[in-house]
């Protein structure tokens, strides 16, 4: 894994893994985020919910450094992400973050084993140890039987479990999951979430889980609702 330099310790973020403050993002004339705040602790699973078009995915993309916010800042382990050069941000995404999306994330030409091994190979791990570790993760996600198959030859549920294995194979500290069960039926969605939550817990990874499904959100430790471009922790407000 490429070490990411720490440019500036910045304000103390305590035991928080990631802190975003005052995030703003506008698409054309449409504001997606308006002064959104967000934080997550190591190992915590936070569900991000909200109506369609509320800015959930934009928030995830800003947190993951995929999209540059128009304003505000995202600090990951005391590093201000927007201040990083692109190459450093990419290295951070490859080494520290994992991603699970709803669709089209596996490379169709590669086998499932090669797909899972891919992030390790990109990080410079040699082929054999990369494939050994990938095989372990496929087994952990109960899809070792499809290791030699290509994504087009397996079911949607199996594909999502392969994608989860790929997201976790590098041992990320933070996993971004955007509607990971959105295209699956209840039973398969349930299985993906159970395995994702358990595997993340075991490996100590935190998860930002964007979903519109309450039953998926119920796997989280905490829920944040994006409404009018801002994040609200309703349970915390309710408890206060």
């Amino acid at each position, binding site marked *: 894994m490429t070490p990411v330099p720490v440019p500036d310790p910045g304000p103390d973020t305590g035991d928080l893994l990631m802190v975003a403050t005052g995030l703003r993002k506008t698409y054309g004339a449409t504001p997606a985020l308006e002064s959104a705040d967000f934080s997550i602790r190591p190992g915590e699973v936070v569900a991000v919910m909200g*109506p369609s078009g509320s800015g959930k995915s934009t928030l995830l993309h800003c947190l993951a450094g995929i999209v540059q916010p128009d304003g505000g800042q995202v600090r990951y382990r005391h590093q201000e992400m927007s201040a990083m050069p692109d190459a450093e941000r990419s290295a951070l995404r490859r080494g520290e973050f994992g991603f699970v999306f709803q669709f089209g994330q596996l490379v169709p030409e590669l086998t499932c084993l090669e797909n899972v091994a891919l992030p390790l190979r990109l990080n410079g791990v040699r082929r054999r140890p990369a494939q050994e570790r990938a095989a372990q993760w496929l087994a952990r996600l109960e899809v070792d039987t499809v290791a030699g198959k290509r994504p087009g030859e397996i079911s949607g549920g199996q594909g999502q479990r392969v994608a989860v294995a790929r997201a976790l194979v590098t041992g990320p500290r933070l996993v971004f999951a955007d509607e990971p069960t959105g295209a699956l039926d209840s039973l398969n969605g349930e299985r993906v979430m*159970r395995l994702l939550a*358990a595997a993340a817990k075991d490996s100590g990874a935190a998860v930002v889980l964007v979903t519109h*499904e*309450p*039953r998926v*959100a*119920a*796997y*989280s*430790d905490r*829920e944040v*609702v994006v409404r009018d471009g801002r994040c*609200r922790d*309703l*349970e915390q*407000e*309710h408890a206060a």
Partner: protein
Amino acid sequence: MSIGHTFLGLLESGPRHGYDLKRNFDERFGQDRPLAYGQVYATLARLLKNGLVRVDGTEPGDGPERKRYAITDAGVTDVGRWLDQPEKPEPYLHSTLYTKVVLALLTGRPAVGVLDTQRAEHLRLMRELTRRKATGDLADQLVCDHALFHLEADLRWLELTAARIDELASEVTR
């Protein structure tokens, strides 16, 4: 739930004492609400009176004699009829939540706050059930799933109502 019919169903596989019936019932169906002994014996007395069970034998116990109950042919017919009959779906047309939302709007209180508070409470329970599923057997998982789907339906209603709260406000305060 009809405790009487459930007892009859359990007795179809063989005679049991009241205590065993209660234990079987609690294990399979009474996860959160175990039966009180008073309920068990009152139900058995009713089934006995209606000829759906009979006393199959008595054994001396520490206190009063322990009766063993068996299902009768009439009981078998009765439980079969009950299983064949669809349950009347709950119409859900009288909702305390809806009443609270409307009253909040009528009295100028923050109705969205009512919805948010309920949402947080629903999600808290959904988390608890999801955790319980992780350690439970299949029966426990299915019982929890039944509750989770209902809670999810409520949450969807809460979201929909929150999205239409301004429309509702103008209607109820007109």
